[in-house]
């Protein structure tokens, strides 16, 4: 017989669906089926079952081959590397639980690390904008229950957050939105004709890199000001119509993605997007929310917020927390040769950092903690596989609206496999011994 684990949380993206059902074998060791997940989420569970999965740490040899080592050896290498480094970079933290993040923070504090998460290549610009202007927001349930105007800006949830529209934004019937999608109007602003744009009522195909101009034009349109004939490739009639649609709603929500956070203008795009939302609050109720990517990048920003006071790019090397994006962010540090060791956990800078940064990682002492083989594992000196958070170990994760949900363990990890948190605790203990504190 099999058993079904209900109400499982999907540890893939910031949508953090919590209604999955996972069918496991009677001995609790094998995942057989995953229901209610999108294709990506289902695969997240099923591929933890891969037979060729790496289950023990390995160290790069001089001839570039891998040699399997014990966890004890991996702990020793990691602890020595961090204890000896003057300014190690500890990067990632987005695909692990808050419990591991908290231990990692204490370890980073002890070794004087720079702590950074994937916001640095994702929504870090949103965090900077929030520091300038604040952010009128809400939980996803307010969207479901009240929102009748949905705007997706520079994001494609049909592909990247596949259940977002069905669970929270466009299709659900909420308390005040009993008609579901027929009671809503959806606007997509994107240079591309995406699958999300195909279901939109209005698709504004903004010219690449001109989001700032279009956002500014919307603010003018809200106030009934005169617009140029065309802004960012959009005729003023369409801009005015979109503005009127937003103003005439009872609750408008703007979701934005990396199309605005990482294109020309960066945090200034987000700054003015938030200003659009603030202005809309003069006419109706409006909120804005970033479409966070990793399932717990939000959580890492929260943990560092309460422990150090900053959400990413936290420099602990002087014994207290400093924050200055551009100075304390990972790529800037790497390219200026300011760090002397690299520790990666719960992300893949090998795939997402500029190649010039990846080359720096390759030349430094480095450790990657990841259950997968990734481009990052190929450039690091030691690779430590760990149990999958959200599959083989539970722990807290934060949704894109900052709501904390505790992920569930559904199967046992391979025998003898450590969790992120266990590994970090062992490294912390060992660093304390080395440093004599």
């Amino acid at each position, binding site marked *: 017989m099999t058993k079904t684990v*209900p*109400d499982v*949380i999907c540890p893939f993206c910031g949508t953090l669906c*919590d*209604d999955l059902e996972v069918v496991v074998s009677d001995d609790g060791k094998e995942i057989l089926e995953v229901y209610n997940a999108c294709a990506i989420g289902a695969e997240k569970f099923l591929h933890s079952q891969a037979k060729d999965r790496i289950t023990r740490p390995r160290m790069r040899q001089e001839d570039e081959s891998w040699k399997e080592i014990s966890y004890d050896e991996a702990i020793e290498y990691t602890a020595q590397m961090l204890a000896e480094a003057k300014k190690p970079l500890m990067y990632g933290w987005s695909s692990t639980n*808050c419990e591991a993040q*908290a231990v990692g923070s*204490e370890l980073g*504090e002890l070794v004087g690390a720079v702590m950074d998460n994937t916001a640095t290549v994702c929504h870090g610009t949103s*965090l900077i904008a*929030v*520091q*300038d*202007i*604040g*952010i*009128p*927001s*809400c*939980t*996803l*349930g*307010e969207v*479901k*229950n*009240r929102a009748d105007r949905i705007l997706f800006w520079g994001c494609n949830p049909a592909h990247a957050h596949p259940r977002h529209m069905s669970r*929270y934004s466009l299709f659900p*019937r*909420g*308390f*005040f939105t009993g008609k579901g999608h027929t009671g809503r109007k959806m606007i997509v602003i994107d240079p591309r004709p995406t699958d999300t744009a195909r279901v939109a009522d209005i698709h504004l195909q903004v010219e690449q890199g001109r989001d700032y101009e279009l956002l500014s034009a919307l603010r003018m349109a809200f106030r009934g000001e005169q617009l140029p004939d065309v802004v960012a490739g959009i005729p003023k009639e369409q801009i005015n119509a979109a503005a009127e649609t937003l103003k005439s709603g*009872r*609750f408008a929500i703007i979701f934005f993605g990396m199309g605005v956070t990482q294109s020309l203008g960066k945090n200034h795009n987000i700054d003015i997007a938030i200003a659009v939302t*603030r202005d809309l609050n003069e006419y*109706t*109720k409006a*909120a804005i929310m970033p479409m966070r990517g990793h399932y717990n990048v939000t959580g890492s*920003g*929260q*943990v560092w*917020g*309460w*422990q*150090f*006071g*900053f*959400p990413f790019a936290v420099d602990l090397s*002087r*014994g*207290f*927390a400093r*924050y200055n994006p551009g100075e304390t962010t990972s790529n800037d540090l790497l390219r200026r040769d300011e760090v002397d060791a690299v520790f990666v956990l719960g992300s893949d800078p090998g795939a997402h950092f500029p190649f010039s940064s990846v080359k720096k990682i390759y030349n430094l002492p480095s450790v990657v903690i990841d259950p997968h083989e990734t481009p990052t594992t190929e450039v690091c000196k030691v690779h430590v596989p760990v149990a999958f958070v959200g599959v083989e170990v539970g722990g*807290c994760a*934060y949704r894109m*609206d*900052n*709501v*904390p*949900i*505790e992920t569930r363990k559904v199967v046992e990890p391979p025998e003898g496999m450590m969790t992120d948190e266990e590994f970090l605790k062992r490294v912390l203990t060992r660093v304390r011994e080395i440093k004599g504190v």
Partner: protein
Amino acid sequence: MAEYLIKNGFVFDPVLGIKGDKADIAIKDGKIVETSAIKDPKVIDATGKTVMAGGVDIHAHVAGPKVNVGRNFRPEDKLFGYKAKSGIERMQGGFSVPTTIRTGYNYARMGYTTVMEAAMPPLYARHTHEEIRDTPIIDQGAYPVFGNNWFVLEYLKNHEIENTAAYIAWLLRATKGYAVKVVNPGGTEAWAWGLNCENVHDPVPYFDITPAQIVKGLIEANEYLGLPHSMHMHANNLGNPGNYTTTLDTFRLSEGIKPNSKFGRDQVMHHTHVQFHSYGGDSWANVDSRTKEIMDYVNSHENITIDMGQVTLDETTTMTADGPFEHHLTELNHLKWANTDVELETGSGVVPYVYSPNIKVCAIQWAIGLELALLAKDSMRVYLTTDHPNAGPFIRYPRIMKWLMSREAREQQFDAFKHRDKVIDATNLAGIDRELDLYEIAQMTRAGPAKSLGLAHMYGGLAPGLEADVAVFDFNPNEPYAPDDIENAFSSVRYLFKTGVQVINDHEIVSNGNKRTLWVNAKVNENPQVMRDVKEKFLRYYTVSLNNYEVSGHYLPNPYVIEVDATG
């Protein structure tokens, strides 16, 4: 555990009725004991020093999502407010919104040992508990918010007290919360549409209920359950000129209701940060103090307690579940504004604020807060707070003590105001000669809040059997002292014990203690209707599943569960 004997200190303890007499305090097994019960104690010489129980803060915003919004969106708050890692102390940062670690240390340095987080959105309870876990030394509990909760609105529309009580018991258990908090009842629900309820009779949009019904119903449900703390109130119309009438209307909702609790409290309503609710006038141009009207009511009604919400004239960060008020504030000062409306439950806002002595209104607010304490006839029912960080950071509590204990200090502050004479005309403070003594300060910061919280069996005093939370200050009440000596002494405790463990020695933190999380587990009769309603709302309107809502035990590494039996 170690035994301690704190010898020859001047003790101020309302529980024992000691008003500065020399006495010895003995500690054993985490409790205060008779001096005859200890055998071989370590002796702490408190000669010439003041000894009090550890302080109890009934209302602060120190843990949870809006506090963290404040931290993350205010990097500038850390610019001059950091402390490097040193010895046993971890890194610390922040002035008005300190990191969790700094929060625990700063309270301990002031001799405080118990702090209550005043507004926990239930959906974010896990976050609040993660922060509480990472806050060293102090015991903490959190108040889930109920005043805009859809279950409460629907049950109280028809005055269904038993159903409301069953729901409260369920939610306290699910969130591991301590008490029933009510913030801008109905108004924060209206704010989800950009609206508000500005007085107690304003209907809540779509829910066919008024704030008056919500408040009265929650008081009755709280007394039906007999929870340790009363309903904890933040009334409608906060911060607006002329709002004192709303406050008095809110107070009147508690008339005739007697406390039904085995925990020793006398009040059925605790109204918080009353300074923000004591304004006359009809615009900021003519706002004035109505503390005489407010305190006439409080002094004559024993079933109400209040706390001050004292303005400390700092740059700080306002944050509250009163979403419409925070939006109002950003329109007033045009500083950055964060807002989060929480599905089915509540909302919140965060806005930085500068209380400048050069702005007349801020000076009037300062005077109003002090008037509340100085006009109180019973200091066991009026408590010292800043509504941290809303009216100022909690690290200013010793300065507030100075202002309350010294007319000279108040006059110095008046003289520093740009609009001194207008402030004096708009307030009563200049005409109040009263200077509180340390016994009254102990009532307002120790015994009083502990009693109001229903924790008088644990905290707030130095009687045998209570928790050994003891603070020793470098302050000799029998020697001449300047006002600043009060602030200096009470800002830095000489010795501090938390549950019998010494955490501060000679002003240095020597232990992170063994902090506990306080929560209330209320047992009620089975209520199938409420459980059916809960299941249905989670299925249809929440975006988390019911089974993923409850905070599991591992978020509270060291829980202290207070059991309440309301069956029958």
